């Protein structure tokens, strides 16, 4: 120990001398470490790090470049969504859940609304057109979510071009979301009993065109990455997690399917009428980052297939209702998206203000109080792009949830980071975490 270094102060602990490095000149530190026998380095990576997929903090213990221990620190994005929902009515809840996993808002909303519908006992009363729109929106959302997973995953491993292609495709989907719901993200479009509003005029041809364009565009990333020798070296055999490991850790989604198990809730426990669509469950048997990458790439085409079938169904169901018939649950006015981006229904305003006081009272009560949901609890799971997204909803019979809990696939799957990365190289942690595709908004809620 020569002079005090403000960037690398040292202190004595029971485990020996500990150096804390926060920047500055490494030479002084290396000189000092040279005098000790151990080379154990604990590196704090994140939460503000461009490669950790959001505000994820990784605490790494290294021996040279080999990772001996990884621990995750989460909670930087905790916003108390579950607690807040206990103070808002059931319909208002959709605006909260949509902000959890912000890359898969439609999935959050669907899981939440399906759970409420199960509690209300109206699962079979949801109009078919609403279910078909939900399926279509979910598959569009799956594409945009997988695009971020692929694009940011590639970017974090040093490949920049795939990110541009991926975000170009995501933009197409977000434009469709804007056309349909008025919002590109956090739409709160799926509502208990159906969807917020019907598709706007001319939507179906536009979506068909977008599907055609995306199918063509997807090839760009395929040709860039599939079989690319640098990409293979960074992803093959990296982040290994086999079926036994995935099962005991409760891992679902593409990570589980990369172990060869075709477990997809859309197939095995269908909801929203997924049993009526033809699509394949994509698997890989490599248990590694490359397998998960291939699964996501191939799931894009399956999503396009489902969207096309949904569009066919929507053409047949033109003009059918998109909300349950029960006026005690359905929002009173069928709003239409105006040119100013705001929804308003002049006919409805004319009715409640001019002709029917009962309608006005009903509107007021339903919008301010909301509807009652019979007491009980349910667990409803949907297959989100990251795995099983489960909504555990408890009602005490009131107009607001008694307790809401989301089993978030990102939260659960992040636990696999240690199993995937320990014993490997430090650079491969990035690939492993990217292949889990955690969204911190969902992890921390």
């Amino acid at each position, binding site marked *: 120990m020569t002079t005090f270094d403000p960037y690398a102060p040292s202190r004595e602990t029971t485990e020996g001398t500990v150096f804390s490095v926060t920047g500055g000149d490494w030479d002084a530190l290396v000189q000092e470490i040279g005098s000790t026998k151990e080379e154990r380095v604990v590196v704090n990576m994140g939460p503000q790090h461009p490669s950790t997929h959001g505000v994820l903090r990784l605490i790494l213990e290294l021996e040279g470049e080999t990772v001996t221990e990884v621990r995750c620190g989460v909670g930087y994005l905790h916003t108390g969504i579950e607690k807040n929902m206990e103070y808002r009515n059931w319909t208002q809840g959709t605006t909260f859940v949509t902000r959890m996993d912000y890359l898969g808002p439609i999935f959050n909303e669907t899981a939440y609304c399906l759970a409420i519908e199960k509690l209300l006992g109206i699962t079979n009363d949801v109009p078919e057109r609403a279910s078909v729109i939900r399926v279509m929106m979910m598959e569009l959302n799956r594409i945009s979510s997988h695009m971020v997973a692929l694009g940011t995953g590639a970017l974090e491993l040093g490949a920049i071009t795939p990110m541009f292609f991926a975000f170009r495709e995501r933009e197409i989907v977000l434009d469709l979301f804007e056309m349909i719901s008025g919002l590109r993200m956090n739409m709160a479009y799926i509502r208990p009993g159906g969807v917020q509003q019907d598709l706007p005029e001319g939507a179906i041809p536009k979506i068909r065109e977008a599907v055609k364009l995306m199918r063509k565009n997807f090839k760009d990333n395929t040709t860039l990455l599939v079989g690319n020798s640098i990409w293979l070296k960074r992803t093959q055999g990296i982040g290994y997690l086999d079926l036994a490991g995935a099962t005991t850790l409760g891992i679902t989604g593409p990570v589980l399917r990369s172990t060869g198990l075709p477990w997809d809730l859309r197939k095995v426990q269908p909801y929203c009428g997924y049993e009526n669509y033809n699509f394949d469950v994509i698997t890989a048997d490599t248990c590694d980052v490359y397998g998960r990458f291939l699964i996501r790439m191939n799931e894009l085409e399956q999503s396009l297939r489902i969207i096309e079938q949904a569009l066919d169904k929507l053409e047949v169901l033109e003009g059918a209702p998109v909300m349950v018939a029960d006026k005690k649950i359905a929002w009173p006015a069928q709003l239409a998206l105006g040119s100013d981006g705001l929804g308003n229904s002049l006919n409805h305003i004319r009715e409640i203000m001019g002709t029917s006081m009962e309608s006005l009272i009903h509107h007021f009560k339903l919008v301010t109080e909301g509807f009652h949901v019979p007491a009980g609890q349910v*667990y409803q799971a949907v297959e989100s792009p990251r795995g099983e997204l489960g909504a555990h909803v408890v009602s005490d019979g009131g107009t607001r949830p008694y307790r809401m809990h989301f089993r978030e696939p990102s939260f659960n799957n992040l636990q696999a980071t240690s199993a995937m990365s320990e014993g490997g190289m430090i650079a491969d942690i990035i690939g492993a975490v990217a292949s889990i595709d955690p969204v911190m908004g969902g992890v921390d809620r």
Partner: protein
Amino acid sequence: MTDSGMFGASGTGDTSGYGGLVRAPAATGSSQRPYGGYFDDIADDLERAYPEFSLAIERVIVDRGELTLHVKREKLVEVAMILRDTLKFEMCMGVSGVHYPENTDRELVAVYPLLSMTNNRRIRLEVSVADSDAHIPSLVEVWAGNNWHERETFDMFGIIFDGHPGLTRILMPDDWAGHPQRKDYALGGIPVEYKGATTPPPNERRSYK
């Protein structure tokens, strides 16, 4: 308490919303056989595989097409092991806490959704404990993936999972006081003024039943 009418204006006739919030605890009592569907098979298999079934399972509830087994906390790990190994519930989808302050000596509830991929079945386990003795044995030994979920439930409800390898807070800061998702923990918030009108924080707004 029974409800009548849409907006719950029973008893006082107060429809203003200022009558205060009435929270009724969840229904009690066990469901009667047959439970329907595969639920009878699960109950039969569990009874066969686990001789102490009637001691360990306090209640069996079938509601809205879902089966819930209320397990005594002393027997939780044993039941979980048998459900995993014999009945092939390979996955536990975490744990969710619920706080019922009115249920004396059963204030805190831990809810475990289980999934069997082999048989494509779901059930739910529930364990109730008193607030004054909020200890539940950890299931991390049975399903390693419960690690973070139990930390979250500890963080939010203060349920202590005995035998957990490292029961620390996970979402709230380490030095946080209290457990935010308990019913006796106020939501908090400040009034917001916008164009001359003031909106009170959500927990002070009028509440309808």
